[in-house]
């Protein structure tokens, strides 16, 4: 893999509406315990946010709450003038999410996988080839994903992000199973996205070398706080499953 091929630039697109992200007194409970409480945070358009915290601190949960897949108990998330509480569908249309799973189909080829997501997300197919090139997957474009390594699958999962062109990226441990070159590429990708006016929230344990990135530290303290533990224990009758007033 040549660094030139890896770092070949995609055209950086600016998002017309520069939207800021605001997390307003967000609290989330799972399985009868508070994962985090009264989380307040704001990020401007073009900012990268690194989510830090020990295992189980609620980084993935926070990302899923922002993505609208997990309802918060209280609080709200606002992106520009779109609010999660009142218009979840519109907020979800602004989000590019890369979770623990790569969302690639082993039976399809590398390129077919990207084409598929471009089609489902109504994205322009012209971005597929530059994305493959950039992630060093252009050489394997017709290889079934079943024959790809874990790192190559992860790259393919991340290559979806520039293809679907969403302003807010939520990345959950994006560098797992990536080599040093590809990890640098992820940092590069995040920088480019921010330069185009997008926001990136990335949960990660490693140093991506992003200068000027904000850090949101989730300590998991809310759980160990005796008062909170008492609250969580005292409301055991409330099923966490039923918390959150929207479906």
């Amino acid at each position, binding site marked *: 893999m040549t660094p030139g091929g890896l770092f070949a630039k995609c055209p950086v697109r600016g998002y017309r509406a520069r939207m800021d992200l605001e997390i307003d007194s967000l609290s989330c409970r799972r399985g009868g315990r508070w994962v985090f409480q009264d989380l307040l945070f704001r990020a401007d358009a073009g900012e990268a946010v690194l989510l830090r915290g020990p295992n189980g601190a609620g980084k993935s949960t926070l990302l899923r709450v922002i993505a609208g*897949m997990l309802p918060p108990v209280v609080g709200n998330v606002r992106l520009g003038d779109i609010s999660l509480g009142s218009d979840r*569908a519109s907020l*979800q249309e602004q989000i590019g999410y890369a979770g623990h*799973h790569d*969302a690639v189909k082993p*039976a399809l080829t590398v390129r077919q996988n990207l084409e598929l997501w471009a*089609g*489902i997300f109504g994205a322009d197919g012209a971005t597929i080839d530059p994305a493959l090139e950039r992630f060093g997957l252009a050489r394997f474009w017709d290889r079934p994903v079943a024959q790809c390594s874990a790192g190559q699958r992860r790259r393919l999962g991340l290559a979806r992000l520039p293809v679907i062109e969403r302003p807010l990226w939520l990345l959950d441990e994006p560098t797992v199973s990536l080599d040093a070159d590809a990890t640098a590429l992820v940092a590069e990708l995040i920088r480019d996205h921010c330069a185009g006016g997008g926001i990136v929230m990335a949960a990660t344990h490693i140093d991506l070398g992003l200068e000027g990135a904000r850090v949101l530290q989730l300590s998991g303290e809310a759980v160990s706080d005796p008062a909170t533990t008492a609250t969580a224990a005292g409301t055991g009758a409330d099923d966490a499953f039923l918390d959150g007033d929207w479906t």
Partner: protein
Amino acid sequence: MSAVLALLRRDVALALRLGGGGGIGLAFFVLTVVLVPLGVGPETGTLARIAAGVLWIAALLAALLSLDRLFQADHEDGSLDQLMLSPMPLEQVVLAKACAHWVTTGLPLIVVAPVLGLSLSLPVEVLPVLIVSMAAGTPALSLIGTIGAAITVGVRRGGLLLSILVLPLYIPTLIFGARAVENALLDLDPVPALALCGAITLFSAALAPFAAAAALRINAR
């Protein structure tokens, strides 16, 4: 609309790949029906009398076989999360997946049903009614199935739970589908039963996407 077609094409393509499970329903349907004359005996009168019921019961079970992978595969590899963020409403995703399931299981059943009907010594003039009743009824099997598949999406080996949830909901389709063919066999009017069979399909097309989407949202938590 093109997004729906993209998803539909993907699901059909994946089902037809090796290991996609597209042929399981058809194979089960054919094998079951072929075994019936061996078990029941070759008297043409008896076979023709039970043919409608046998074909419809086999179709029900065949549709059930591939249902548990309907959302499970996408749930396991993270695709379901992505589909929730796609510009399509989740209800549309469900409808597209139900269509793909019908194309890969229901449609092949309709194609082979007349042949199997003949092997069960159904009179040739009854076969058009059999085809129409399967065409009107099998979409309901896929649509109702999405509800059960969505409810059991997070459950490992949820196949049994899925069958228990879904089979009772299949009963009206079974009754009216088999009744239409039987009526035709007995020179009675098959149209009312066919109409009711189609009505169940329309009703489930209107209801199932919302029920399944709600279940998927709860299971994504």
